[in-house]
């Protein structure tokens, strides 16, 4: 998957940069891995919702869990489980484009 931040490609949540907002485009197994319906259910019921606004807020030290803000709620998730969430990042701020 390409991860050029200047383009609107989707990326998995664990790759979303801190402070960059986005929108959840899909919840499901990343390409090439087996589906885990239980995890999918857990994520959905906890409030990870397709179409919801999401923003990466904190990375735990040494590959610890991630703290993300989903529609105003703070949720903690481990990077491995975060790869289940596909995010479409918002276009980068105008000031960066101007550079």
């Amino acid at each position, binding site marked *: 998957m390409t991860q050029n931040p200047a383009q609107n490609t989707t990326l998995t949540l664990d790759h979303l940069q801190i402070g960059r907002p986005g929108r959840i485009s899909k919840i499901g197994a990343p390409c090439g891995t087996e589906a885990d319906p239980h*995890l999918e*259910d*857990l*994520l*959905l*019921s*906890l*409030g990870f*919702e*397709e*179409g919801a606004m999401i923003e990466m*807020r*904190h*990375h*735990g*030290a*040494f*590959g*610890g*869990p991630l*703290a993300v*803000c989903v*529609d*105003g*709620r*703070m*949720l*903690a*998730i*481990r990077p*491995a*489980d975060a790869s289940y969430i596909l995010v479409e990042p918002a276009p980068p701020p105008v000031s960066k484009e101007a550079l």
Partner: protein
Amino acid sequence: MEDALRLALVGNPNSGKSSLFNALTGSRQKVGNYPGVTVERRAGLLTAPDGRSIEIVDLPGTYSLTPNSPDEVVTHDALMGTSQIEQAPEAVVCVVDATNLRLHVRFVLELKRLGIPIVIALNMMDLAARDGIEIDPGLLSKELGLPVIPTVAVRRSGVKDLVESLNAEVWKKLWADYPAPVRATDAPPSVRSLQKEARRIASIATVKEGVENVLTRRTDAVVLHPVIGPVILLSVLFVMFQAVFAWAEQPMEWIDAGVVGLQQIAVQSLPDGLFRSLVVDGILAGVGSVVIFLPQILILFAFIIVLEASGYMARAAFLMDRLMTLAGLNGRAFIPLLSSFACAIPGIMAARTIDNPRDRLTTIMVAPLMTCAARLPVYTLIIAAFIPNTTVFGGVGLQGLVMFGLYLAGIVSALIVAGVLKRTLTKGAPPRLLLELPKYQVPHVRDLFIGLVERARLFLRRAGTIILFSMILLWGLASFPAPPPNATEPDIFYSAAGKVGRALEVVFAPIGFNWEISVALVPGMAAREVAVGALGTVYSLSGSEDAVASSLATVLQSAWSLPTALAFLAWYVFAPQCLSTLAVARRETNSWGWTVFMFGYLFTLAYVAAGATYWISRALI
């Protein structure tokens, strides 16, 4: 008189459900356990203004009706009417967080399919206003087809309206305006379609979208910071343990003085004899030695309740997750393990929030390794007697350092044992950490108060039952049979307890324990702290616990060698002696096998550690 209306309180976690429950029932609550699972069952009685009595059950918070943890199974079964223990409720109050309307509405949609009358308590209206969110309860009610009552549970606002709605007349009229609840029979819709519907309803009912709370965001920027965050966490823990010792000192002295006073009254008013000995040495000294820990336990719980209610506890789990993963545990295990510093029993019970059964089991197995408050008197006694009150490394008190080392030994071995278990017996998929970091809130005094009263009641009940019983039993065993007339040894040597101790000495002599210690270990099964009282009895002392502790220290100095004392400390880092813990572990794991395993591994570790300490220190000294 008609039967009480059975009402269930349900809602997502962090919806303020427990606060609402406290506001509704006040102190008229009964906390028990669901048999088979250690999920607390909180029920309370309420009298509606028309005199109808209402039994209200606070069901564990859940995000959906798909049960994922033992907590959620209880809620699921109770609502579905499939529970063996909980009758299906006649009506449900669903607590909805006004600041997270969409998520909560989805749960309401799931609930509606059950065909039970539902009243929505639209809670946290104050926080919604703070964040600039505006919700029209009328529109929400119309869209959901359910009565909606705005509430602020912590301030009791709206609670009266809620109670009012439970009046039989009002209830009937209320429901005249809404479609009758019907149990859905079609296949349940997917979560995604429920989410879509919830989104539609929430957007209609939301007059004004809020802005994200700046305070929570700024606080999180510090609290969850990869460097500052752990520093804050450590400071919080440090303050907590300092408080447990420092603040408890005064009330503990009062309790002690009270026990001594009672003993004096007993000595003065009862004739010298067996009965007086039973009251003074058996009951008062024994139970007093346990009740004295009430202040420490309450202070620890006050911290835990406040940390939990403020929203910090979930952050602590977040910060600890990486470290806990090393031991194969989940960040959530941090909360049960922290509680275990007060007592392993609430700690083991707190493990119920861990959804993965293997993680839960591992957490339960290592919880007793956290140094509980009951071990303190043992440590205090031995340290005071054997560790010189000097300073090392430029000003660090040696006694305090030893105490810290004992705590640390417990923590480190818990992490090691958990790591070993996760790689062998409880092997499985890596644990998951999926949790909500709730918004920060100022904890409410009423919730703190009710929580503490609850803990005090549970603790004192234990002191009044199992500990009282074991002290009487020990006193009996230590007093009979009476010594022969030409006795050369202390009286207890000839008693039943003495015989048991001498028999056990065969097992414990290799690790440096004499028969007196062996005797004391037996009643220590009931509660670890009893060992201090038991040593006092064994060394033929009587009087107040404090007198026992101080003069006992002197007696021990001459009776024990230093290696024996150190071995005794090492023993107590692991000591499996606590019947209540084993009983809770049995109930929680629902397995005798695991309970026996817990006892066995703790005993083995205690034995090996005490033995190693004894032989190594003997070789060195």
